[in-house]
C-alpha cells in the first residue's frame, strides 16, 4: 500500500470507528444510571435530552475563556451554517408557543457534535502554551488564566513528569467541572495514565485532543440532568 493509500485508509478507519462509538453513545445516552432496580429504569427510557447548543456554548465560554460569554459559538466548526445548530437542541417559537426541539440524541446530531468537538479539541490542543484559542485566520478567544495553566501543564505530554493524576484532574475539573460523578473521572484517568493507553506515547496534540473529546462527548456534559 503506498503512502497516500495508507493515509486515506487511516482516515477512513478512524472515521468508521468514531461513527461506531458515536452510535453506541447515542444508544448509551438513553440508558439510566440509577442504582435501584425499578421497573421504569428497566425500560431504558431516556431521562434527559441535550441542554442545547446555546447552553453548551455558555458552559464552555465560562469555563475556558475570559470575556467570551456573548461571543463564543460553534458556528466556525459548522462552516458558519447557523441553522445546523438548531439541530442540537434549541427553543423554537412555533406559532404562539415555545418548545424545546431536537433535544433527543440521534445519529445525525451526534455527528454534528462530533464535528464541532473534533474541531474545537484540535484547535485547543494546537494552542498549547499560547494562552488563547485561535480559530481559522483571525477568530481569537483568550483563555482564562486557570484553564491556560491547566492546559499548559499537559503540553509536555508524553513526558513522565506531566503524566499524573493531579494534572489530569485539573484538566477534567476545568472542562467537566463537577457535573460527572467522581467514578467517571477515575475511569477516564485510568485510560490515559495506563501504560497500555494508545496515548501513552502520542504527541501532546493527539493526547489533549482525545482528552477533550472524551470529556465533551459524554452525557454529563451534553445532556440536561
Amino acid at each position, binding site marked *: 500500500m503506498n503512502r497516500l493509500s495508507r493515509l486515506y485508509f487511516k482516515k477512513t478507519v478512524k472515521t468508521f470507528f468514531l461513527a461506531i462509538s458515536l452510535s453506541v*453513545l447515542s444508544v448509551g445516552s438513553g440508558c439510566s*444510571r440509577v442504582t435501584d432496580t425499578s421497573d421504569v429504569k428497566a425500560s431504558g427510557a431516556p431521562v434527559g435530552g441535550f441542554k442545547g447548543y446555546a447552553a453548551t456554548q455558555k458552559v464552555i465560554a465560562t469555563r475556558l475563556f475570559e470575556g467570551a460569554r456573548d461571543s463564543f459559538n460553534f458556528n466556525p466548526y459548522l462552516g458558519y451554517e447557523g441553522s445546523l445548530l438548531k439541530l442540537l437542541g434549541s427553543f423554537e417559537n412555533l406559532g404562539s408557543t415555545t418548545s424545546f426541539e431536537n433535544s433527543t440524541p440521534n445519529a445525525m446530531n451526534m455527528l454534528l457534535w462530533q464535528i464541532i468537538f473534533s474541531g474545537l479539541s484540535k484547535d485547543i490542543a494546537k494552542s498549547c502554551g499560547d494562552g488563547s484559542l485561535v480559530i481559522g485566520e483571525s477568530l481569537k478567544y483568550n483563555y482564562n488564566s486557570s484553564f491556560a495553566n491547566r492546559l499548559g501543564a499537559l503540553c509536555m505530554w508524553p513526558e513522565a513528569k506531566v503524566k499524573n493524576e493531579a494534572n489530569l484532574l485539573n484538566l477534567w475539573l476545568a472542562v467537566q467541572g463537577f457535573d460527572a460523578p467522581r467514578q467517571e473521572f477515575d475511569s477516564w484517568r485510568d485510560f490515559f495514565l495506563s501504560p497500555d493507553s494508545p496515548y501513552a506515547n502520542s504527541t501532546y496534540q493527539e493526547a489533549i485532543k482525545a482528552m477533550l473529546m472524551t470529556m465533551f462527548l459524554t452525557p454529563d456534559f451534553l445532556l440536561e440532568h
Partner: protein
Amino acid sequence: MRDFVNYVFLTLVISVLTACYQTDSSLQGSSDKKPLDKVSLDGESSEDLWAKRAWIDKAARSLRYGEGISPAEDVDSLMSMPKDEIIEYLMKDLRFLDTILDFNLFFLGLKNDSLYRIERPAQNVESRNYDIMSLSPASLSSARAVWENGDYFKLFSFEHPFYNDELFYEVPTDRKSPGQSDRDYRLDNINLALDNYRQLLVLLDQRIEQGGGAKEFCEKFSEIHSSIENNLYKTEFPRQLINNFTGISTPDFDLQIACFFSDTLDFVKFKGVLARQMERVVKLVAIVDHPNVSTPQVVKSPLDILTFQNGDFGIESKPDIFSFQSWFKLPNSSTNFNRKRAAYVLKTYFCDDLTPINIALPSSHAGNKHADDPSCASCHYKMDPMAGFFRNRGIFGSNFENKNIMLFDDQALFQGEKYNSYMNTWKAPSELGREWNVGYIRSATDPKKNSYGDSIADLMKIIRTSNEVKQCLTKRMTEYFLGSDQVYDAGWVSSLAKNFEAADKSGDAGASSQAFKEVVKKLLLSNTFVKQDPEKNQCYDYAPGEEVSSLPCEVSFLINKNCVQCHSANGAAGGLDLSTWSKRGTGELNFSHIDRNGIQQTKSQTFEKLITSLSTNDKEKLMPLNKFMAPTERAQIYKWIERESSTAVVGGLK
C-alpha cells in the same frame, strides 16, 4: 495494523465510558484503588464535597442565566456556606435578573435561545438589545420588580412604561455635514418631517374647501407620508421609539377604509388626527436633549434599558395585553373569531391545553352547534367565552371598539348585519343579568364558579387574581428550573404555589417578589434538583406532611383530593378502590376493582370505566359525583388514564 487495533480499543473504551452507567463492582474496583477521600481536589475531597461542588455549579447556572462558576470565583467561601445562603448570594448577582426575564418569557411562550443580541452602536462599543417591546414589556416590568422588591405580578399587568430597547446609535459621519453634531443633524431631520406635515395640512385644507373623494387624496398622502417616515428615521433615533411616540407607523383605519373601500373620508376629523401626530413629533425634539439618552447607548443588563413613563414628553404610553409581535402571531380571522387568542391565554396563563373531555351540558345554552354537541362543547365552553375578551381587537390587534366595524387579519371586513351577528356571538341572554357571555369558565353548569368580564382589562384582573394562574406559574417555574420532561407530584407543586397565594392575600406589593424567590429557592433545594440522572417518571419531592401512597405520583395527589373520599378501602363505591395501586390477580398494575361477583376486573375494564366516568355528559354519572373538579385536574387524570390504557391488555381501551 497497530492503528487498527488502537481504533478498536478506543471505540470500546469510549463505549464503556458513555454507555449505561452503574455503580457495579467493575467500576467500584477501579475507584477502590484510589479512595475518594484520599485523592486531592485542590485539597481534600470526598463524595459529599464533590456533590456539593456540583450542586453549586448547577445552582449558579440556573440563577445566572446559564453561567456557572468561573475559575476566578471564590468557591471555597461558597463551599463553607449552607445551600440556602448560597442561593441568596447568587440571587444578588445581576445575572439573576436575566434569569427572571428569561423565565417570564418562557412562561409566556416567547423564549428564544438567546435573551438578547449584541450590537455595536459605535466602534469598539458593545451593547445588548433585549428587543423587549416586541416580545413582552410586562416581562421586563415584572423582572425588574423582583430585583427591586416590588410586585412580581406586574407580569399580569396591562400597564407598563415604554421601554426603549432599540439602541441609540451614533449618527454615521458620512451623513452629517462637516463639523455637524449628532444633535444638530437630528434636529434638521425632525424639522424636515415637520415641513412635510405642514404640506399635508395644506392639502387637507384644500380638500375641505373643495370637497372630493378620498382616493385622490390618498395617493398624495402616501407619498408625503413616506417622506415624513424617511426624515424621522434618518435621525437614527430607534425606530420603535419614533413609531411609538408619534404613531407614524400605525395605520389610521378610517383612512385605510376610505382609501381601499369607501372613498369617503371625514377630512376635518383626519386633519385633527394629523395635527395631534405633528404635536408628538415636535416633542421628539425634547428627547434629543434628554439627560438619560446617551449616544452611543450601552446596555449591560435589563436595568440599563431606557424607560419612558406614561406622561413623559406629554406622550401617552399605550399599554396592551400583547406586543405587536404577539398580536401578529395570534391572528383573528373571520372564521376563528378570536379562538386562537383564547386558546393561547388558556394554555399560557391557566396551563389548560384544552384536552377534549366531554362535558355535561347546561340546561340552557346558545343553541349553536358548538354548544349543542358535547364533543364540541368540551373545548368551546371554555374557549368561546375567553375569545369574547378580544371581540373588539381586529387586524394586528387594532382596537375597533365603538367603530361598528371589524377588519380581521384575513382582510375580511364585517359591518352592518354581519358585524352585529359577530358581536352577538357573545351576547348573554337577558335573564343572566350580564351583558356578555365573556369570561374564564370553570364550569359549564355552575356559573358561580366562573369569572366573567367584558374587556381585556377585566381579563388581566381575572388572570391577576386567579389561583389557577398561580398554580400554572409555579408549574412552569418547576419545568424551567428542574426540567420539563420530569413528573412532579401535584401536591408538591400546589404547596409551592401557596407562596404566591399567601403573597396575594398579604396585600404587600413586595410579597410577590419574595414569593418568587422563595419558590426558586425551594426548587433549587429540592431532591429533584440534586438528583443525578433522575427517572423522569418518578417523583422525588412531596408536600410537607404528604403521605406517599402507592398511587403513581403523577396523579396521586389529584386522585386523593377528588376521588378517594368515595372510592377508598372503606366503602369502595362501585367496587372501585382508588386508594391503592398494585399488581392484581390479572398480573397488571391496577386499582382494586371488584365486580358484583367478587372478581377483580382487568386493567382495561377498570380504565374504560374511569374514562367514561370522567368524561360523560350525563351529570348524574359524571365523577366526582356532585362535586366540582377543576378542568385542568380532570384533564391531567384523563391524560394519565389514556396513557396507562395504552399499556392495558387487548380487549380494553387502546
